[in-house]
């Protein structure tokens, strides 16, 4: 398996690791968002969604472990790529025309990722952990809506989701390019779909704290 190790450590192999894990995370986000949106239908709908997931319990834990591995690979490999690339560039030009020759989304992947990572830690600590490992039968709807009523929590949530949109806008089309699927006919469509996907995911998640903070029950 030495060749495989070398492959995943090559410049192109590292991109592929980002791509494969990225695609899995893109799919995960759709499922997660669909579940979250049941919050709009109230406590009962949301609990039904949560308890439906519980039905596949042993499997759910396995999926969670795999998901965690995907996240870890995406994060660690991403940092490796970023750090290696910084070294490959070395000294930078004093004057840069980067805003003329590339998009801000593509240039800020590490920054958007850092904020999303902080969000992820807070997210797991305040929602996933109390619900799954907390003492007593916690009510997920209560936990979530309670958090959304805290302005600072919600604002950071919204900010992180905006940056998630930035990250996905570049990541989506980037995945196709790295797989080598840049076709004259279809690539512009892929870029458009990626942007729509990024907006929908960011807006979808961010709409929940906005709703609970400003509109729910008023």
């Amino acid at each position, binding site marked *: 398996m*030495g*060749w495989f190790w*070398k*492959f995943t450590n*090559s*410049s*192109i*192999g*590292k*991109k*592929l690791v980002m791509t494969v894990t990225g695609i899995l995370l893109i799919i995960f986000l759709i499922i997660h968002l669909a579940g979250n949106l049941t919050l709009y239908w109230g406590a009962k709908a949301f609990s039904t969604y949560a308890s439906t997931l519980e039905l596949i319990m042993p499997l759910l834990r396995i999926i969670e472990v795999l998901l965690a591995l995907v996240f870890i690979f995406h994060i660690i490999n991403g940092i490796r*790529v970023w750090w*290696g*690339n910084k*070294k*490959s*560039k*070395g*000294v*930078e*030009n*004093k*004057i*840069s*025309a*980067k805003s*003329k*020759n*590339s*998009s801000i989304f*593509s*240039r800020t*992947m590490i920054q958007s990722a850092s904020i999303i990572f902080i969000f992820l830690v807070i997210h797991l600590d305040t929602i996933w952990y109390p619900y799954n490992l907390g003492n007593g039968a916690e009510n997920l709807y209560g936990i979530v809506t309670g958090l959304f009523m805290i302005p600072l929590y919600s604002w950071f949530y919204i900010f992180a989701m905006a940056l998630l949109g930035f990250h996905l806008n*570049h990541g989506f*089309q*980037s995945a196709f*390019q*790295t*797989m*080598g*699927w*840049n076709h*004259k006919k279809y690539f512009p469509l892929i870029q458009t779909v990626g942007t729509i996907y990024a907006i929908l995911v960011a807006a979808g998640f961010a709409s929940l704290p906005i709703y609970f903070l400003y509109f729910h029950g008023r």
Partner: protein
Amino acid sequence: MSEKKINLKLKIWRQSAPNTVGSFVDYSVSVSPEASFLEMLDELNNNLEKNNQDPIVFESDCREGICGTCGLVINGEPHGPLPKIATCQLHMRNFKDGQTIWVEPFRAKAFPVIKDLAVDRSAFDKVIQAGGYISVNTGGVPDANSIPISKDIASEAFDSAACIGCGACVAACKNGSAMLFVGAKVTQFSLLPQGQPERQSRVEAMVAKMDELGFGSCSNTYACEAECPKGISVKNIAKLNREYRLAKIKSKNVEA
């Protein structure tokens, strides 16, 4: 005949040797708008030499945009502000009277500065030596057109072959990645029948060499395509990614 001249302020990177600290030095020039950027530097160098000062080192050769030797970062852009030209094809009429122009060398770890604006791009030669060729037995010259290649394929391969190896893609890239250059070479050979026998070993060897020399990993910002004087498309990088992946899956080479 009195010709109208434009006055420019230049801030040029001066560095006396590879491992010394460099800095920007200010120069004022009055130059014909019809002069090319390199002619402007020639004039400046003539004046410097007249005053017993060290002339500014920069590279050039054909001065008609086909050799890939010249290459300066002008106001932050490799080969200057106009698309699809080399530095030698940039004329002073594209600058405004009184404008300040920053002139810097290409920047990448794999392209160390030799002196002033000249950088060592021999890393590209090493990547080519690793696999950017076809092996043919010497002997009689084969008949022309003995290998049928359709016009479409020939044109596509030529689009990639238009790369002049200037290195602007590396300089434009925030990651110092050479993938547009390597992608162009790999694509060109992979499209033509002559490139087939070494198709897998070529891409494996060229990518390994590129990594070894310290070029970065593409993160798809596409700055390279925007700055490439020959308009080489990032589809060449997509093709490189695919060729490399398939080579890794299919080739019998377990060492590389």
